[in-house]
C-alpha cells in the first residue's frame, strides 16, 4: 500500500500472488509500473478496504498513511513496514527483502544482481566543467543531492543546482533565485489533468529560455531498477 513497495512487489511477485496494489502504484505520473501487471486490482489505501481483501501480508512504506497501517495491525493483519530507498544501493537490498517477504528469493536475486551489474557498468560522463542541472517541479520543488533524483543527476554527470542553493534533500527554490542561478538544464515532470497554479508556475515566461529535459515518468520517484532509465535519459540530454 505504498508507491514504492507496490512497484517492488509487482516486480518480484509471482502471478496471482498480489491481492491488490494501491492506486498510487497505477498513477502514470508517479509509478514506472502504471501499466505493468494490469490484472492486479487497485485499492484506495483505506484500512477498511484493505481489511476486506483479507490479505496474508500487508506491505506498507514507513511513511504510508499511519492511521490506516496502525488500524490494520490492531485488526490482526501481518503488516511489514519498508523504509523508502534512500540510495541506489538500497534498490538491490530492497528487491532481495521483497523477495524474502513474498517467498520469491530466486527471482528477486536475479533482478537485484542484474541491477547491480547494470549500475556498475554505467560510466559517469567526465566533462569539465560539468553542466548545471536543476530538478524543478510544481510549486518550485527541487531535489537535493541526498535524494534519489539528486544521485541520478550526479551519475548522469551534472552538478545539482539545488546543492549550490543549500538544499540537501529537497525543497522549494523561488522562481527569482532559479533564474538568477542560470541553470543549463531544467528537469520537469508530466502534468496532471485539470490544471493547477502549482504546475502553471512551470509555464512562467521567465523560464522559457532554460532548456528542459524529462525523465521517463515515474522512473526516479522510487528506488526500482527503472531508475537506470532516468540516468540514461539524462546522460543523453546533456547539452
Amino acid at each position: 500500500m505504498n508507491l514504492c513497495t507496490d512497484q517492488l512487489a509487482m516486480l518480484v511477485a509471482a502471478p496471482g500472488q498480489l491481492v491488490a496494489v494501491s492506486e498510487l502504484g497505477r498513477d502514470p505520473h508517479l509509478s514506472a509500473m502504471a501499466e505493468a501487471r494490469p490484472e492486479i486490482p487497485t485499492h484506495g489505501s483505506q484500512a477498511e478496504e484493505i481489511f476486506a481483501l483479507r490479505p496474508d501480508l500487508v506491505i506498507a512504506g514507513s511513511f504510508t498513511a499511519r492511521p490506516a497501517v496502525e488500524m490494520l495491525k490492531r485488526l490482526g493483519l501481518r503488516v511489514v513496514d519498508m523504509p523508502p530507498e534512500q540510495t541506489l544501493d538500497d534498490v538491490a537490498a530492497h528487491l532481495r527483502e521483497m523477495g524474502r517477504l513474498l517467498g520469491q528469493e530466486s527471482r528477486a536475486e536475479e533482478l537485484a544482481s542484474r541491477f547491480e551489474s547494470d549500475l556498475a557498468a554505467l560510466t559517469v560522463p567526465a566533462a569539465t566543467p560539468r553542466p548545471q542541472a536543476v530538478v524543478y517541479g510544481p510549486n518550485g520543488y527541487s531535489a537535493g543531492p541526498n535524494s534519489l533524483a539528486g544521485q541520478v543527476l550526479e551519475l548522469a554527470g551534472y552538478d545539482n543546482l539545488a546543492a549550490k542553493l543549500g538544499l540537501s534533500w529537497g525543497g522549494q527554490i523561488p522562481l527569482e533565485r532559479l533564474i538568477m542561478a542560470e541553470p543549463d538544464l531544467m528537469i520537469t515532470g508530466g502534468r496532471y489533468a485539470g490544471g493547477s497554479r502549482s504546475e502553471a508556475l512551470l509555464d512562467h515566461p521567465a523560464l522559457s529560455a532554460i532548456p528542459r529535459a524529462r525523465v521517463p515518468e515515474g522512473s526516479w520517484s522510487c528506488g526500482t531498477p527503472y531508475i537506470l532509465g532516468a540516468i540514461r535519459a539524462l546522460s543523453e540530454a546533456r547539452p
Partner: protein
Amino acid sequence: MTRLLLPALALLVALLFVASLTIGYTPAGLGESLAALGTGDGPLGLVMREIRLPRALLGVMIGLSLGLAGAAMQGYLRNPLAEPGIVGISSAAALGAVLSIQLGLSAAFPLILPAAALGFAALAVGLVLMLAGPRGGSITLILAGIAVSALAGALTSLVLNLSPNPYATYEIVFWMLGSLSDRSFTHVWIALPFMVVGWGLLLTLGRGLDALTLGEDAAEAMGVSPRRMRLLLVLGTAACVGAATAVAGAIGFVGLVVPHLLRRAVGARPSALLPASALGGAALVLAADVAVRLVVPDRDLKLGVVMALIGAPLFLHLIRRTRGEVL
C-alpha cells in the same frame, strides 16, 4: 487638503511601485535593478522584466480595482460595511475562476478565466444587492454576504477537491487568501481589459452617488436613475473584482479599509472618494505585497493574511460603531 490628496496618493503609489520592483529574493541595489529593468539582458533583467514588473503592475491594478469597487458599493448602499470581500463577491469570483481552470476552458481560451470570474462576481453582486434592499441595512447585508461567501467558498473547495490534479486541493488557500507571487505578463494582459472597463463604469457613478447621499427621492428628482446606477455598479464591480480575483485570488478588506481611511479627507463626498479610494487601494496592496516579501521572504505568505490582519480589527470597530443602527 482635498486638492492635494490625489497627487499625494499618486506619489505614494509611485514610491511603493518602485519599492515593489526593487524588493525580492535577489538582492540588487536600487539603481542596479532599475537599470536592469530597462536594458539588462542578463538574468537580472529577466527577473526584473518578467517577474517583478508584472507583479508590481498587478499590485497597482488590483489595488485600484478593489479600492474603487469598495468605495462605489459603500456609496451606493450608504453603508461602510459593504465591501467585495466581505459580501462574498471575491469568493464567488474565485469560484468562477476555479471552475474555468478545472474544466480546462481557460487553458483553451485564456480570457475565459477573468470572464468566468466576472460572471460569478456579477451573480454575487446582484444577489447581495437584491437581498440587502435599496437602503442596504447592515444586518441583511452582512448576512447575505456570509451566505454568499460560505456557499462560494464551499463550492470552490469542492471543485478543487474533486479535481484530478493532486495539487489543486492545496490551492484552496490561494483562492481564499490571494497572492501575487510568480505572476507573469500573461496575467496582466488577461486582467487589464476587464479592469479598464470596470474602472470606467464605476467612475461614472460619482455624480449619482453624491445625489444619493440626499436620499433616493431627492436623487431621482435630480435626474439620477437608481436603477441604472445599480446596473452600472453590478457590472463595474463584477468586472473589477472578477478580473482581480481571477489572477490573484480573493484579496479581502482592501475596499473596506481604504474608503474608511480616506472618507474624512475627501469631505465624505462619494464622487471624490472614488478616485482617492482607487489610489489608496493601489498603495495598500503594493505595501502589503512588499510586506509579505520583507517579513518572511522564503515563505509564500498570502496577501490575504496581511490584509486580514489590517482589515479585521477595523471591521470589528465598524460593526461596534454601527451597532446602534442595527439593534
